[in-house]
């Protein structure tokens, strides 16, 4: 979880991610940011996030991103 915060902080500085539940819907995470985030997550956790996972529900909060990473890591 901490690692995810760090990555997010690097992509979009000065944003409060902790309580946020609508990162995508509020357009804080744009598609460009998501692509950066995904490639960083792939690198960091050695997982493969594919387009099917790129839906707003998976990226709206840090928690959901965390869940996604955990889920993919298990495979």
């Amino acid at each position, binding site marked *: 979880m901490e690692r995810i915060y760090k990555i997010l902080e690097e992509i979009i500085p000065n944003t409060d991610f902790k309580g946020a539940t609508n990162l995508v819907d509020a*357009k804080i995470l744009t598609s460009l940011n998501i692509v950066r985030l995904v490639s960083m997550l792939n690198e960091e956790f050695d997982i493969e996030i594919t387009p*099917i996972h790129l839906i707003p529900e998976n990226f709206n909060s840090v928690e959901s991103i965390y869940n996604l990473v955990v889920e993919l890591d298990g495979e």
Partner: protein
Amino acid sequence: MPYFMMTMLLIFTAVTIAIYAVCPRRQRYIVLLAISLAFLCYISKFTVVFILATVLTTFLSGIIMDKITQSVDIKALDKEVRKKVKAKIKQKKQIVVLSYIVINVGILLILKYFNFFALTTTNILNKFGGNYEPFILKIALPLGLSYYTLQALGYVIDVFRGKYKAEKNILKVGLFICFLPQLHEGPFGRYDLLMPQMEKGDNINVNNLYNGIAKILWGLFKIFMVANRASMISDAVFKDNGKYGGVTILLGGVAFTVQLYAEFSGYIDIARGISKIFNIELSKNFDLPFISKNVGEFWRRWHISLGAWFRDYVFYPVSTSKFLRKSTQKLSFNISNFVTITISLLVVWFLTGLWHGASIKYVCYGLYYFILMILFNIISPYVEKILAKNNISNDNKILISIRVVKTFLLVLIGMIMFRAENMSVFGNMILSIFKNGEYFNLLKILEMQDILALIVSIGILILGAVAKIKGIDIEDKFNNLSSIKKYFVCFALFTVIVVFGAYGLDYLPPDPIYGGF
């Protein structure tokens, strides 16, 4: 949409409402399909076979892919084998998707782009001393070709990705692809959002009926009060583009921007209104595009469903593709990321441009936005730094206004390119902004009363936008009125359009800019 087609659309809608209402719930989706097909046959004549071919291939691809997935019980296998089997399944499904794309994008390419390619190649050949007559196809495009092809493709890709199971009822696939209101100019719908609403067959109730009718009227208001008048100004400027300069060019560009927005969003409102009557919510296509602070945001607020389609089915797959990952592996992270995003954006904007029309101009239009996006990506970190140094917050009102104006000007240039006949006309027009041209007499094009009507109606649109920014939901307010009040609101709108609308012999017929795509 020509008057004729618009009238027919509204008449077909009225007929649908009547049949839909008396039909049993579970068969109602068939009513919607039947009417859509009837309308298609009526308008597109024999070219309706192309849409039927798309329906059939879409349906079959979905079913075949599901069969492939179900052919093996993956969970029964152990981990090592599982991976191999999975890869094999994926491969098989890829073949299905690829052949689907070949067929359907093939139809699109041949019908829409063949002449463009034929002309370009013969031009090139002739430049090298050849003497060829270009081979031109003379087929009318089936209604909504560019829209339904992409929408169906989205469905097939989703099934391929396993987002949802394939539809086993060909009639429902047909309805998803041919649904009348969104056929002509979108918005692009997603199967998993639309189908549950479509198959439910909800009763028509008073609230939805008024809501739908109000939306339709609002759309007509935009088209007849704003777009058709603004178009007379922009047509005049762009027709004699060599004559004018300076402010006139800008006026023409702004008029075209207003026209395109009012017209396109008006048609979308009509489509959403018709669907709303049957309690089907179509996706949003516009969200106050002219308050965008950068071009990227503009495209998230303008033609939203197109942007979303290209994001989900082009941008994400390309940017996360193995090929790109491998080829950028050796670069440092930041550079590889930049390369990935640049290449993906290039693909997206090239295709977006081409989607708008088969000509070099539209490709340039796409690439224009590609360049703006890349520039923004490069510059914005520095701008942020400078702002942070000077303690200027991003919420600073002056900063926001500057950004909104900047975005509007950039969009305006894009719009002039979009409307200009070709790239050299566009170039000349941009240059002549800085020159003095002939005197442009607006009163020769529009009578004083028309100009007044245009200004007042644009004012009403702006008022609506301001209300929305302030958080006042006008739609909600309308829904909470009593039926009698709703009735009179609709009646008033109707009367205003009938009396003051710009239609008929004295005005140009509405010619939808986004309809031919």
